[in-house]
């Protein structure tokens, strides 16, 4: 474990992602980690925390405001630039691809900051992956529900068994080159238009 006295400020409106990054930084031995979700009054907080490294998500619409604040902080001799080394193009690309940006107090050595940035990038990527999987699971569940309802309509209106109803949906989907869930959704919508479906 590396002991570090660097103060790290994480600005992220997404509380779950922020806590994932915070946990990662603490596991790596960083004790001075502050997380901010809402940028209201951030100037005062930055003055209090005096962060060496600021990590911010790229979706945050307040980046322009924050950068302006960092520029103005030159007046009090705390210049902050994005990344330690502008020439480290690969790191910068990896960060932007992951959706994270970082500002580092000028003069900090690359080897002290790099692990923090790498950590932020990998946790951002892990979070995106998790969010994607969650979304896939959610839409899978939604599709299953709508297919069940479509099967029910077919069973009732055409007197089919459940298996036959599903086969009909699947064949129709294949013939039309569409997803079963799309066909099921169309059927449910049409049934809704044609009359109240009993046993909703």
């Amino acid at each position, binding site marked *: 474990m590396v002991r570090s006295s660097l103060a790290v400020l994480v600005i992220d409106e997404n509380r779950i992602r922020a806590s994932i990054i915070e946990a990662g930084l603490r596991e790596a031995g960083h004790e001075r980690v502050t997380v901010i979700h809402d940028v209201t009054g951030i100037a005062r907080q930055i003055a209090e925390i005096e962060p060496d490294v600021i990590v911010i998500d790229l979706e*945050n619409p307040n980046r*322009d405001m924050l950068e302006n*604040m960092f520029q103005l902080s030159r007046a009090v001799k705390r210049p902050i630039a*994005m*990344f330690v080394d*502008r020439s480290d193009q690969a790191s910068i690309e990896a960060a932007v691809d992951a959706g994270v940006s970082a500002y580092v107090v000028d003069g900090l050595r690359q080897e002290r900051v790099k692990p923090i940035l790498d950590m932020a990038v990998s946790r951002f990527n892990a979070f995106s992956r998790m969010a994607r999987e969650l979304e896939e699971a959610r839409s899978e569940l939604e599709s299953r529900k709508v297919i069940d309802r479509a099967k029910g309509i077919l069973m009732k209106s055409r007197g089919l068994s459940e298996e036959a109803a599903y086969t009909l949906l699947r064949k129709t989907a294949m013939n039309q080159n569409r997803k079963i869930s799309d066909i099921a959704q169309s059927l449910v919508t049409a049934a809704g238009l044609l009359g109240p479906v009993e046993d909703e």
Partner: protein
Amino acid sequence: MSMGAEHQITAGFMPLFDSAVLVAAGELGFAAREGIDLTLHRETSWANIRDRIAIGHFHLAHMLGPMPLACNLGLTPLASETIVPFSLGLGGNCVTISNAVWDGMAAHGAKPDLDPARAGAALGALIRERAAAGHDPLRFAVVHPHSGHNYELRYWLAACGIDPTREIEIVIVPPPFMADALATGRIDGYCVGEPWNSAAVAAGTGHIVTVKAQIWRNSPEKVIGVRKAWAEQSPEALAALLRALHHSARWCQDPANHGELAAMMAQPGFLGLPPAVLMPILTGHLKLGGGAELDIDDFFLPFDKAANFPWKSHALWFYTQMVRWGHVAHTPENLAIARDCYRPDLYRSALKPLGVALPGANSKVEGALRVATAVGATGAGLMLGPDGFFDGQIFDPDEIDGYIAAQKSARAQA
């Protein structure tokens, strides 16, 4: 996605109405007709646009007019050389203030006529009254330090005898948050593009006191910023895109298309706002607050008056204001960088085959045209101006040292 397209171009934009010419080029087939497969990415900050241009995610983007200058002058954390071969329009911004500030200004003679001089005099009187009573300075917001908004707000205030660096505070707020920040009292006023001014008026929380089109008539706003390395590698793709943007801009200007244009920009993937909110910028008919309404000449021009021509004098005026407010030092090297940023040569060579009217000069004396004027140009029927500053000043791009010195001494005397 047309697989057969000759050119693949990726562009970024911010959800603001003046991205319309770029968005319409992609959505309405102007780009496809020039053999371009144009992919548009909506962004959440100008910093993101700058970063994604710098690392090559975008070939080009919708940008604030002074932003490419700031990139090339090394004023931003991460930047690559960016050039401007096309302007996305003239005008479009307003200055909006809270009801409380409006009441204070009205007591000092302000009228709902958008006259910058009258409004500025009333604001100055209010600011001195507040200072004498020991109140905090008024806080104004702009969208970015290197923006037309910041520079025109400061120009207006300074010309009215208000020092924007000492007598008010200027902060940065993202455009969609402006009206809320005003309503909750976190700011007292702001300068931003539409529809974020009309939004405060509609909510009953703000008054529009003046407009960009009256501070500096037909003045530059957003541009197409292009990654220079890509422009040099792909001159044909860039020329094709400039032709597509030209046709798109002409379409956007035509009043017959305004309904369709507003409906297109209203979609969730672009602005995500009701179309009706987007009509004032197109008609120039603004509600000012308190029941007052006004028609504004040349409020926003996406095409007319050579609106797409990247005048070097526009870039150089931005440069003088960067110097004026301490964003950059005035040196021969910096001046040369500013002079090379806007590229009318690329605009002209791309559009020449179309046989349309093109300005013959790269620069003009800003503020010299008091009325709309037909100018000597290749092709026929090119009207320019009027391009006056409200205080009657002239900016001659051949007399930059004198202009900068005069503004400096005016401030020293204030």
